[in-house]
Each structure stands twice: as C-alpha cells, then as structure tokens.
C-alpha cells in the first residue's frame, strides 16, 4: 500500500466519512473507495454497498479465483436527542449500551440537569447553538422529543439537511401534520420530509417512557443497518 492511500484513508476517518480499502491479496494492489464520492461505476458495487451497510470487513473470492479483501471503516454512530425528558432518561443508558455516542440537548435548564442525566454529554442550550458544536452527519441520528416547535423544528430541519441516517419526531399524527406544514415553510421538500419517522419508534405497543425508548432505539438501529439502501433503490 502507498502512503498516499493511507493518508486519504486516515483523513476520511477524521472527517467521519465511510471508506473501504480494497486489497487484491495476490497482486498486492490496493485502492480506496470513499462512500460519499459514489461508486456506481465500480464493478464491485454490490459487494461494496453491502459492506458499507454492515460495516463488516472480510474476503471475497471471485469466480476467477482471485481473493479480494475489504477493510471497512465506518465512523462510530452517534445519537442526538433534543429534549431532556423522561423518555430520554431511559434512552440514554440503553443507547450507550448499544454502542451509540449520545448527546442530549435541551435549553430548558430545569430539564437538562446532570442529576437527571449522569454519564451523558448534556448541552443546556438552544439547538441552533448546540448543533454546530455536535456537527451532524450521515452517521448521526437525531430524535426530537420536546413537543415544543420552538425547540424541535430547527433541529429537525438541520438533521434533514445534514442527511442524518435517522430522524425521528415524537408526537401524534395530528401534531406531525402541523409540523410538516411548518417545515415546508422553512424550505424542506416532501422527499426530505418523508424521511422523518413519526410517530416515533417501531410499533411495539410501547406505553411507558422506557418502552418508548426501546421502540425508538430499535428504529434507530434498523435505520443505521439499512442506511443508504432506500436512497439507492429510489435512484434505480
């Protein structure tokens, strides 16, 4: 491998882009595929797409008997919750166990207290101040759970613009209908709006805040693991 390829790989990693190093182990030839640059013309695109989703490194033997090794490097997934509410108190430790780097944002200082959220990064600020510090991207999921448009709307719009792998919003269908109207007024188109998961969470008949947290986390996980599939199917 050339130092130039390794430098590109390390830079992509620092910038939180998904990359795959493709090595022909017989010839020693190495090349780098950066997900955001696209790979539609790549002869291995099916294999690459599956591995960008699963994150699994591994070998493939082609029909001609050549062995190709894929080193997959995905950024660690993050989850941002807007709203330091009861559901978030249950979701924070669960998401952490499931491997997500969590951040909770809520400008209401009565909600966003370290007593209620031990061991979780907590920003008691408005989303327009806090989100630029967090830096939304395709490996970040975001859920809004405050029920307050003043707090939720900006974060929702930003998460759609940043192509977050998951965008969820708590609230009834009626609440969500009004929310969609407000977001349209902010210039978000219908394709983008359709990416919002609302009502939030997989339908598991959740009742308690902890059960709703399970439903949300499951929805976040399925979105992470099917990441990019819908977009590619729509384009095909």
């Amino acid at each position, binding site marked *: *491998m050339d*130092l130039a390829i390794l430098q590109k*790989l390390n830079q992509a990693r620092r910038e939180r882009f998904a990359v795959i190093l493709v090595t022909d182990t017989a010839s*020693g030839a190495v090349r780098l595929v950066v997900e955001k640059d696209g790979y539609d013309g790549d002869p291995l695109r099916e294999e690459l797409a599956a591995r960008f989703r699963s*994150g*699994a*490194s*591994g070998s493939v033997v082609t029909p001609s008997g050549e062995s190709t*090794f894929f080193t997959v490097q995905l950024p660690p997934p993050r989850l941002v919750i807007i709203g330091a509410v009861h559901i978030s108190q249950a979701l924070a430790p669960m998401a952490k166990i499931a491997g997500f780097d969590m951040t909770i944002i809520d400008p209401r200082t009565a909600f966003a207290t370290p007593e209620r959220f031990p061991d979780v990064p907590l920003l008691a600020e408005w989303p327009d101040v806090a989100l630029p510090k967090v830096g939304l991207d395709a490996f970040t999921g975001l859920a809004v759970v405050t029920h307050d448009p003043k707090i939720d709307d900006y974060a929702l719009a930003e998460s759609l613009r940043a192509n977050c792998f998951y965008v969820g919003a708590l609230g009834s269908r009626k609440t969500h209908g009004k929310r969609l109207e407000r977001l349209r007024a902010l210039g978000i188109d219908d394709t983008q709006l359709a990416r919002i998961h609302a009502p939030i969470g997989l339908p598991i008949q959740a009742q308690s805040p902890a059960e709703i947290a399970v439903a949300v986390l499951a929805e976040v996980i399925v979105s992470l693991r099917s990441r990019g599939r819908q977009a590619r199917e729509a384009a095909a």
Partner: protein
Amino acid sequence: MTAQTVAGADLDVLATAEAWRKAGRDVAIATVVETWGSAPRPVGSHLVVDGEGNFEGSVSGGCVEGAVVGEAIDVIAAGKAKMLEFGVADETAWRVGLSCGGRIRVYVEKLA
C-alpha cells in the same frame, strides 16, 4: 458497539502507521483477513510494525504477534506482501499457536 470501538482503535493503529512512515521509518501493516473458530481478534484488525521490530496494535491478542513481527521485518526487506496462517493444526503450534484453538490468516504488506 464493541466492533465499532475495535474499529476505532484500529484506526489509531493506521494513524500510527502514517506517522511512522512520514517520520522516515520503514513500515509494514499486518491485517487479519480471515478467522476460523474462536479467534481473539476480528477480521480487519491491524498490527503495524517498523524495521526495528517496534509494533502497535494486535492481530491475536498476543499469541502470534512475535511471529508476525518477524515476518513483517522480512516483508519490509523484500518489499513483497505475504499471507500468513496460524492455528493449532499448524506444525509450529507449540511455538506460535493460538491457545484458543482458532485459526487466523494474516496479510502482511509494506507501506511504500
């Protein structure tokens, strides 16, 4: 997620490889490309080795690193990549076998 944490740690190893090469050191990168049975480190794990035998990272949690470092120094000298295999079924089991009973295949390449 453990896998992601491990991947993150591995990337530090790749950052080390870049830093060492930029500092003018000869560098080889070893990568676990296949595992069978209970292997201690997952596919994609890296070990970086320099020409003096200094290393960072791991491909087996300590079982066969010594042997991989030796082979990596040869790869640095020869400039040609090499595929290594370790396991209890190997005739060298007593020297560099995996105590867990698994087998691993490790690809070693020079960083040019």
